[in-house]
């Protein structure tokens, strides 16, 4: 599983790095940075939680 964030869509709600701190972190502006692009299985649920709670739909998780 692979996580991506479309930085152009991120406006810094910060839901992802609060709900999924092992997958995302905040940059200086409070925008999203993916810290674990390749997801180990134990982080999938957390990552999905972060992705689902992005109000801008900026995060995607794919199986490639």
């Amino acid at each position, binding site marked *: 599983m692979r996580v991506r964030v479309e930085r152009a869509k991120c*406006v*810094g*709600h*910060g*839901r992802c*790095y*609060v709900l999924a701190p092992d997958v995302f972190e*905040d940059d*200086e*502006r*409070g*925008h999203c940075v993916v810290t674990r692009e390749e997801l180990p299985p134990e982080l999938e649920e957390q990552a999905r*939680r972060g992705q*689902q*709670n*992005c*109000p*801008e739909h900026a995060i995607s998780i794919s199986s490639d």
Partner: protein
Amino acid sequence: MAPVIDDAGRINLFHEEFARCPQPAYAQLRSRCPVGRSILTDAPVISRYEDVMWALRHPEIFSSEMELHMQLGTERPMIPQQIDPPAQTRYRRLLDPHFSRRKMEELAPGVARQARALIDGFVRDGECEFDAAFAIPLPCTAFLDLLGLPASDLGFFLELKDDIIRPHKGRPDVPHTELQPVRNAAGARNYEYFRRALDEREARPREDMLTALSRAEIDGERLSRNEILDICFLLLLAGLDTVTSTLGCNMTYLASNPEQRQRLLNDPKLIPGAVEELLRWETPVVAVPRLVKRNVTLSGVELKEGELATLLIGSANTDDEHFEDAQIVDFERERNIHAAFGAGPHRCLGSHLARMELRVAMEVWHERIPHYRIKPGEIPRFSPGIREALYLPLVWDV
């Protein structure tokens, strides 16, 4: 009393009943007229989640550049709220780091201390009027700390923001149409205060946000004095009133729903989720205005260029078409992409500050006063506009 929604499907956004309990009116609007009209201004009122979100993400059509329409006593647009991208983006790049979650979390211990000190002042009384005793002073003190202003100026700021946002408060006999001079005078006092505070910091720099703003640069150029004043004006209006209102809405809900409150007492780890869910359900900032820049169709209704549209955030946040079990308050909601802080480029600059203050306030309050209720025989009173619980008498056993 006239109904919140009239026979033609138009809504009175300033109805007292609507301020107290808006959710039923939202549901009616969404099903009857997703793009309705305001009784008072005839402005279009947008109530579906999808439409509201779309509008928030399209500032080129739903513009925030409308300072003259707002009549908040400003001489220029507030920055960055009343400026659209691309200019707005440059200001946000400068301001966002000052309001990041990390920075705001550093303030949490101070907010907790302040919350405890406030509670110490009334806990043995077995009762308080929540708005005056807690909801108003807590965020205002945090705001002064954040900017680096003395706590002794609290009274000055409280009067100022009320004169601008709620000039009718304390002036019940003055007709609405005659309140504008009150706002303008307060606006002038606000500019003057910050002019002086900035002068002081230019002479003697300190470790505070105002000093940082006075030295800030965008693309190698210092911000002008007016730009800094226009930022400060917004911080005052946005930073004081909204968290106060949210605290009052949350406590009204928790005082009226003891089984939900018990869940927070059993497991305080639910508090952050409860903060999110109550932001969604209560949505104290009921609506935001946007100026329509060109004709556009939403839910089959055409909005015309030049109209001042009302985006009904509270209704979007309770839309059954978007949220599963939208009418149920669930502190463990898995997916909660509410718009209480807006969305798109104008996402609330202070959202991380607000979330921290709300979480800390809820934690400290429930540690100290876990069981409380609305004073028997009393009914909380809510202000129209931003839903502040102006009168919220709480009692507890001592």
